[in-house]
């Protein structure tokens, strides 16, 4: 550790520059750069209304990506989160329509989210079944279970005060508030608290972590439980934005969330990445989706272009890491 410090102090690239070259900075630059480029082509893109709509409409993805990043950093993965969000949104709406106090309909999804994810985390951590298997199975259970129970009936008579996403705190809309708070608190916690840092240790090298006194199994369980909490938050924003709750699992949502985490610099090898990165990445992906409409990319090609951009970002990230590793830095 001291050798690394010596190297970085001696090298012309001091701490500030290092931060600038990080994935988060890269994403921030990309977000601003894209906005400028698209703004030149179609100035309406830069209207405050549009930029805030991009943030509001996609905040739930960023919130869920916070939890997903933690899971991936710890060396696991979860593909059931999309189905879980659908289930939690339905639960929330059903409670509200059934006349439960609004606070109950907001809190129950959080608790349920934690419970379901913690169960999966326990199976992964203590029964040592690979996360992809457990979450694949859970995806099926949640998806089928949701339709079985609801019969696919949409929820439409939501009471007026259900819509958490319509509220604002000090003038900032709730989805953005939740997104920023979730990201900031999680980032600080993961950086500065021993339990938070244990996530990185578990993901990077579980054996070494164990030798350092970290219990990888307890950490993984905790990570999944937290992930469930963030999924619950995301489902609240998702459910309370619109007047209709479809009682189905949103298609492809888990892939979008994983992509946000991955583009945000979280490494599937575990141990690397930040939640700030995943939030920025979620914003970038949402911005790209909107930008493609503004610059008149043919709708038949938008998915291909978006896929190409994601690929480019990923490759750029890996190349950047390799160049830094070659120069002898440690992250």
């Amino acid at each position, binding site marked *: 550790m001291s050798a690394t410090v010596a190297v970085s102090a001696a090298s012309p690239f001091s701490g500030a520059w290092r931060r600038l070259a990080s994935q988060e900075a890269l994403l921030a630059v990309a977000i601003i750069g894209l906005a400028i480029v698209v703004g030149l082509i179609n100035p309406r893109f830069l209207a405050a209304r549009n930029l805030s709509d991009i943030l509001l409409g996609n905040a739930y993805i960023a919130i869920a990506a916070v939890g997903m990043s933690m899971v991936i950093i710890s060396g696991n*993965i979860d*593909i059931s989160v999309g189905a879980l969000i659908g289930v939690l949104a339905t639960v929330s709406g059903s409670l509200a329509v059934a006349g439960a106090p609004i606070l109950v309909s907001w809190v129950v999804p959080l608790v349920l989210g934690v419970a379901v994810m913690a169960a999966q985390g326990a*199976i992964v951590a203590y*029964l*040592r*079944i*690979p996360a*992809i*298997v*457990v979450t*694949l*199975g*859970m*995806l*099926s*259970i*949640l*998806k*089928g*279970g*949701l*339709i*079985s129970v609801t019969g696919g009936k949409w929820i439409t008579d939501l009471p007026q005060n259900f819509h958490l996403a319509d509220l604002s705190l000090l003038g900032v809309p709730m989805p953005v508030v939740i997104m920023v708070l979730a990201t900031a608190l999680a980032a600080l916690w993961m950086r500065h608290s021993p339990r938070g840092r244990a996530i990185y240790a578990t993901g990077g090298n579980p054996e070494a972590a164990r030798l350092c006194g970290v219990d990888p199994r307890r950490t993984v369980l905790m990570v999944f439980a937290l992930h469930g909490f963030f999924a619950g938050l995301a489902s609240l924003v998702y459910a309370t934005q619109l007047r209709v709750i479809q009682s189905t699992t949103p298609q492809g949502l888990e*892939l979008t969330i*994983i*992509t946000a985490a*991955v583009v945000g610099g979280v*490494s*599937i*090898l575990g141990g690397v990445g930040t939640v700030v990165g995943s939030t920025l990445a979620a914003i970038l992906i949402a911005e790209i989706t909107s930008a493609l409409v503004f610059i008149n990319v*043919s709708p*038949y*090609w*938008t*998915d*291909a*272009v*978006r*896929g*190409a951009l*994601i*690929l480019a970002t*990923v*490759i750029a990230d*890996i*190349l950047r890491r*390799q160049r830094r590793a070659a120069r002898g830095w440690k992250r």
Partner: protein
Amino acid sequence: MSAAIEAGVWRAPRWLKQHETLLAIILIIALVSLGAFNNRFLTVENLLDQGRFITETGLIALPMTFVIITGGIDLSVGAIVGLCAIMLGYSWKTFGFPLPLAIIFALFVGAVAGFVNGYVITRVRVPPLIMTIATLALYRGLAEGVSQAHSVRGYPDWFYFLGQGSVFGVPTQLLLLAALIVVAGVALDRTTFGRALYAVGANETAARFSALPVDRVKLIVYTLSGLASGLAAWVLVSRVTTTRMDMGIGYELDVIAAVVLGGASIFGGSGTIWGTVIGLVMIQLLKNGLALTGVKGDATIVVIGVALILSVLIASSLQRRRD
């Protein structure tokens, strides 16, 4: 064995504790119980019919087993199926290729798509999960862009033989799958290539130091994965008589479920073709048996999810007892 019994502990024989054997036993129990509930399930006609539906995921599951054994994963297979299906129709209708050439072109596109995956994974060293998530989006998008959401239909009759015809009562595509299962099984079990896969998956660094062509091996398996997806696309188009850009959506999860159920470790280093086949058959026959028993689609999905977790739980805990 008698010594073990004398010691007061009965240890099951080794072959019984093999994951594949346990799975096969669970499969047989499941089949017999479903057959008891429903007399149309265990008929030759029904089982052969299910063979048709198994083929597309089955073809992809073979190289996916290789990929997972090397410790990698390929989530883009479904998108490659869609892309190849579109290219088959597009090259026939718009480029004017004669249909046999269009088929070969589609297979070629699949192989190239897989090769791109393998190349970036080995040269640029992007982790497979991330690379194939990105190409999942890209290839599906290409399918939509090229096809402009149009379908190509109206193929000559001979084209449908693969997907809808039978040879001596056995569906054509099932024969194709069976042949490839044998080839894949032999390759994995009896060739140096197969052994290299296990070595790479068990410990890639050690494999590299043992002068195994690790990168070449990986490149080959990802290319095969793409090629198999192209083959699956051909079978699919032949079976449903049209091309659609949304073909293959979700295949990756079905294939991975089969491979993992069959005993391959997602971390690499273990797995067999035989296990994958059992996993494949189990999932398909479970779905079919439940449907015939009158269980509706949504409940079937739940059962499959539970069965997946339970089977892996049972097989892994029994194995752990051996350790």
